[in-house]
C-alpha cells in the first residue's frame, strides 16, 4: 500500500515558539541561544528547525532531556498545537505534496482521525475517563465517520481484547483502571482506525517495571503484526534501545544528532549525547 522506500512522514523545518520573540533573540543565530528561552522577552523556542523522515513500518525514537521539545513536536504533529512555521507531508495524502500544517481545520480533523494515532504520557489527555472503554473507542470511530453501533462495539471489543483488557471490564470507565491498563486502552483507541502512523509520547513513564514491560511488548507486537510506523518519544534510553531502529536526539528544541540506534548508543558524536549515554545506570 505504501512505498517502503519513500518516507511515510516528512517533516521540514518545524518551528514552534511560545511568545513573539524580541530583537535580541530573533536576530541571534539559533546556535548562539544556549537555552531555548529568551530571558528578555520570555519567549520559549520549543522546536527549532526540526527536520526528519519516518519510513513505513519503522520505529523512530526521539530522546532528549525534559524541555528539549520532544512532546511539543508530537503535539504539533497531532495538531494539539499550531506550529509557528514548517512543513509536513504524508505519503499518499493529496499526492504526498500537501503541507498538512497549512490544511483547513476540517482536513486536519480528517488527518487526525484517519492517518494518526496518538498515545499521550498522561492518559487523562487521551481518554475520556468517565466514558466506558468501549465508548472511548467508539468516540474515535464516530469521529472518523462510523455510525454503525454493532460495528463499533465489535471493533472496540476486538481492539481491547488485543491489548489484554478483560472482556468483563470493557464497559468500565478507564478512571477505575490502573496506569498500565489506561495506557493499553489509549493504545487500543489510537489503533481503532488503522492509522499508518502512531505517535507515542512517553508511554511508559510513571509505570512500574512489569507494567512497562507489558506495554513495550504490546508496542513491539503491534509493530510486528500491523507494520505501523511509529514515532516514539522517551527520555528512557532502554526503551529506545528495545524499540527503535533509528533515533533522533533533541536538545533545546533542536535535533543535534540522528542515526542508527546502536550507533547512537555505542558511538555518540555530540557532547550532549555522550553525556546522556554515559548517564545510563
Amino acid at each position, binding site marked *: 500500500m505504501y512505498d517502503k522506500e519513500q518516507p511515510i512522514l516528512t517533516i521540514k523545518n518545524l518551528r514552534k515558539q511560545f511568545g513573539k520573540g524580541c530583537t535580541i533573540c530573533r536576530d541571534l543565530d539559533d546556535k548562539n541561544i544556549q537555552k531555548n528561552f529568551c530571558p528578555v522577552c520570555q519567549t520559549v523556542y520549543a522546536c527549532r528547525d526540526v527536520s526528519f523522515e519516518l519510513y513505513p513500518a519503522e520505529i523512530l525514537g526521539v530522546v532528549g532531556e525534559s524541555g528539549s521539545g520532544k512532546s511539543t513536536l508530537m503535539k504539533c504533529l497531532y495538531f494539539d498545537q499550531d506550529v509557528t512555521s514548517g512543513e509536513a507531508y504524508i505519503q499518499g495524502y493529496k499526492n504526498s505534496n500537501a503541507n498538512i500544517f497549512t490544511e483547513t481545520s476540517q482536513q486536519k480533523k480528517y488527518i487526525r482521525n484517519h492517518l494518526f494515532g496518538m498515545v499521550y504520557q498522561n492518559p487523562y489527555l487521551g481518554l475520556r475517563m468517565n466514558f466506558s472503554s468501549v465508548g472511548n473507542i467508539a468516540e474515535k470511530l464516530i469521529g472518523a465517520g462510523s455510525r454503525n453501533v454493532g460495528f463499533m462495539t465489535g471493533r472496540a471489543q476486538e481492539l481491547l481484547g488485543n491489548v489484554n483488557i478483560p472482556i468483563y471490564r470493557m464497559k468500565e470507565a478507564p478512571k477505575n483502571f490502573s496506569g498500565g491498563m489506561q495506557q493499553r486502552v489509549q493504545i487500543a483507541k489510537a489503533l481503532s482506525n488503522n492509522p499508518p502512523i502512531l505517535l507515542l509520547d512517553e508511554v511508559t513513564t510513571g509505570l512500574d517495571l512489569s507494567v512497562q*514491560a507489558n506495554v513495550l511488548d504490546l508496542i513491539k507486537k503491534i509493530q*510486528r503484526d500491523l507494520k505501523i510506523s511509529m514515532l516514539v518519544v522517551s527520555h528512557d534510553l532502554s526503551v529506545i534501545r*528495545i524499540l527503535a531502529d533509528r533515533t533522533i536526539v533533541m536538545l533545546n528544541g533542536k535535533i543535534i544528532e540522528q542515526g*542508527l540506534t546502536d*550507533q547512537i548508543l555505542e558511538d555518540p558524536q555530540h557532547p550532549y549525547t555522550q553525556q546522556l549515554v554515559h548517564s545510563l545506570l
Partner: protein
Amino acid sequence: MKEIIKIENLSKFFELHNLGKYIKACQNISFTLHEGEFIGITGKSGSGKSTILKCIYRTYLPKGGCIWYRSKLYGVINLAKASDRQIIHLRKKEIGYVSQFLNVMPRTTAREIVQKAVLDIGYDIDYAKEEAENMLSHFELDQELWDTYPNTFSGGEKLRLNIASAMVKKPRLLLLDEPTASLDNESKKLVKVLLEKLKAKGTSMIGIFHDLEFMEGVCDREFNMKTGNFTV
C-alpha cells in the same frame, strides 16, 4: 574470486568531549576480502580488532577511509557513508554480526528470536517457523529451551542461539567478534563445524578469535593488526 569487501585507509578515533580526550582506535587499515573467503584478525587487546568489525557493521561511524562492499541490493556501496536506511536493509538481508554477547529483545523466546531474523528478510511466518526449527536443531539447542527466554541459558547455549539467529538469514557477509571467547572446547568445535558449513555455502567471513589456531582449516588468511599485513 570477486572482492566482497575492500577496506581503504580505515581510521576511527573517539572524541570524548566531556573528558577532553581523543582515543585512537584504529588507523589506516586496508585489506580486501574475497567472496567465500574467511579472514581472521589477530592482535593484542585494544589494538582495534573489534573496531574494524563495528565500523563495517556501522555500529561505529568511521572517521576516515572507505569500506567498499559489493552488495546485492545496492551494487558497490561505501558502508562508511551509506545512509542509515541502506544499512538497516543490509543488516536485515546481507550482513550478519555475532558477538560473544546475546543482545536481544527481553521476554522473547529462543524460537521467536530466530524466527524474527527470517521474517525480517521478508519470508512468511510458516517458512520462518520451519527455518527456525531447522536452525535450532542444527545448533543442538535442547528442544525444551526453544520456547523459553534466553536469560536462563548457559553461555554456550546463548552463543549458539546468537549464531543461529545470524546464520539463519544466510548472510553474504558474516562478522564474528570473538564468538568463542567464553566457550568450552566441545562448543568451540560445534561452532567451527558450523562455520565450515557456512563457508562451503559461500558466506564470506571476517572473524576475531583469541585462539585462531583453533580455526585452522576454516581461516584462509590472517590479518595482523600490529604489522597491518596478512599471513597465510
